[in-house]
């Protein structure tokens, strides 16, 4: 068999010797990248998310009004004059107070995306470090740390976050902290599980033998190796966060006027949906498309990074 392809074998031997045109190995990440970019739905979704982010950053350049400015002319008859139209400059129409809905949607997108991404980041950082530390140290410390997570995750946090919002005022910072602080729990559990399986690998032992400190092993060797699974959960966490913020804003407890978010816009749009459907339709479309896309990207990442799941 081998001798039949003598030329091929010789060529290979030469390549190996000279190092020219040698076969390159593919790392886990390159493999994952290839798998991800073959998934058309995920790539398309990533592209659309990019567009929405660009919209939230540069969208205000094209607005004819600011998001808090009231167009008194449109206010006189919101149903007829506040309609979406190119001529008046209200591309998405106006809201019930005569403010430009296009500018408000841009502003809402900024807040919603920011809350989604930043609070996920908070949750991921806390969760990853906590979980990695707990799994790596092990023993009694691990037991206590996981018991704390268990107790905390048995509390109805959604209600407690609302309580927090009510008692300490509606501050955007508080939303980040509250949501982020609540959702690191699952992350910590997942990362701990992964860490336990990584802990006994040879390269960790080698690091021990070289006298690397515990903390450095966690940060340099354990955390990068659980990054794959962290990334998957992060992409699924962001839509959850956006939804959560919208939920709080829908109840009227989220962002403070004149700032707005998709949830707040939807809750305003719901009131007037009988005669001014556009006030609901535009923010709703943005929210739903974003959630759809993040979910597809998340699924794509999971398929790409976690071949077992398929």
């Amino acid at each position, binding site marked *: 068999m081998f001798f039949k392809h003598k030329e091929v074998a010789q060529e290979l031997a030469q390549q190996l010797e000279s190092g020219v045109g040698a076969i390159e190995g593919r790392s886990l990440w390159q493999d994952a990248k290839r798998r991800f970019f073959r998934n058309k739905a995920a790539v398309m979704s990533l592209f659309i998310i990019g567009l929405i982010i660009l919209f939230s950053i540069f969208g205000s350049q094209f607005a004819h009004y600011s998001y808090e400015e009231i167009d008194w002319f449109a206010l006189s008859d919101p149903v007829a004059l506040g309609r979406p139209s190119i001529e008046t400059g209200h591309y998405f129409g106006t809201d019930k107070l005569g403010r430009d809905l296009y500018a408000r949607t841009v502003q809402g997108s900024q807040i919603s995306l920011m809350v989604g991404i930043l609070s996920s980041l908070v949750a991921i950082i806390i969760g990853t470090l906590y979980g990695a530390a707990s799994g790596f140290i092990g023993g009694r410390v691990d037991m206590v740390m996981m018991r704390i997570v*268990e*107790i*905390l995750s*048995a*509390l*109805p946090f*959604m*209600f*407690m976050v*609302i*309580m*927090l*919002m*009510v*008692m*300490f005022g509606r501050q955007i910072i508080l939303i980040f902290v509250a949501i982020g602080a609540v959702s690191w729990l699952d992350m910590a559990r997942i990362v701990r599980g992964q860490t336990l399986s990584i802990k006994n690998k040879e390269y960790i032992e080698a690091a021990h033998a070289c006298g690397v400190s515990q903390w450095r092993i966690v940060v340099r060797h354990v955390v990068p190796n659980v990054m794959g699974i962290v990334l998957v959960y992060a992409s699924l966490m962001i*839509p959850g966060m956006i*939804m959560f913020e*919208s*939920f709080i804003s*829908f*109840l*009227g*407890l989220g962002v403070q006027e004149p700032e707005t978010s998709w*949830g707040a816009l*939807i*809750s305003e*749009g*719901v009131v007037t*949906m*009988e005669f001014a*459907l556009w006030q*609901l339709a535009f923010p*709703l479309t943005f*929210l*739903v498309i974003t*959630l*759809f896309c993040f*979910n597809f990207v998340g699924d794509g990442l999971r398929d790409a990074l976690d071949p077992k799941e398929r």
Partner: protein
Amino acid sequence: MLNFIFRRFLQAIPTLLVLTILTFALMYMAPGSPFLTEKGMPDEVLANINAKYHLDLPVWEQYLIYLGNLLQGDLGPSFRYLDFSVNDLVWPSLAVSATIGGWSLLIAVILGITMGMVAALHHNKWLDYTLMTTAMAGIVLPTFVMAPLLVLLLSYKVKWLPAGGWHNGDWQYLVLPVFAMATHLIAQIARITRGSLIEVMSSNFIRTAQAKGLPYRTIILRHAFKPMMLPVVSYLGPLFVGVLTGSVIIDVFFGTGGIGQHFVNGAINRDYSMVMGVTVLVGVMYIAFNAVTDIIYAYIDPKIRY
């Protein structure tokens, strides 16, 4: 088994304690006093009121009194509706929420599992893709989007069903809230069931059953069903949370007068004792439900030792 159930409920006690301490601390730290009015009142009156509600005692003593009352089932007086206790207000609305939540859970479990199984058994065929795209839509459409859309379609456009209200639970008034709440849950369950069944169907014991020549139905119902249910059951806990959060939106949007409405109104009116009462009540239910889920799980999964 009994021993396991007993231990599982014992484990819930520290969680409950943390829950009460956290909620109490939040209420204590909240700025302002519920009885400070703009007009102000004479110091003696304020002192009397503070004494009546034990606000003059040290914090830990206040907490112990609250805990003592709580153990006797007393959630304290409402700060907003002065003649009512939180109990008077909360229990009737809990019945409403339980009706809506119960129906949605039932529908979600039945429909979700059926959808997931059908999709899994037609893995990678058009039926699978259709069902799973629908499920994805159900997941990204949150309850607060689903509710207005349903009302817009079925109440304003075709005028089949009332847009809100409760009317002692007449079925017409029940359909929209239940459906709005159930869609999200159906979608989640369908996705989990599908994934689980696909995995189970490729395992060795199913291949053995097929090799034995067992009929298809028997393989699915007798061999695949139970292991398929494991991830679904472990999702029951979060599912229940979905019902609770959904209830907040449903009650606000449809005005059904369930427990969520009291929570939001209490929050907006700064009726701290009401908000706390609801939080504690919901927390207790939530923790109890988690414990029940664990017990069911242990019952189904022979690998779990108890």
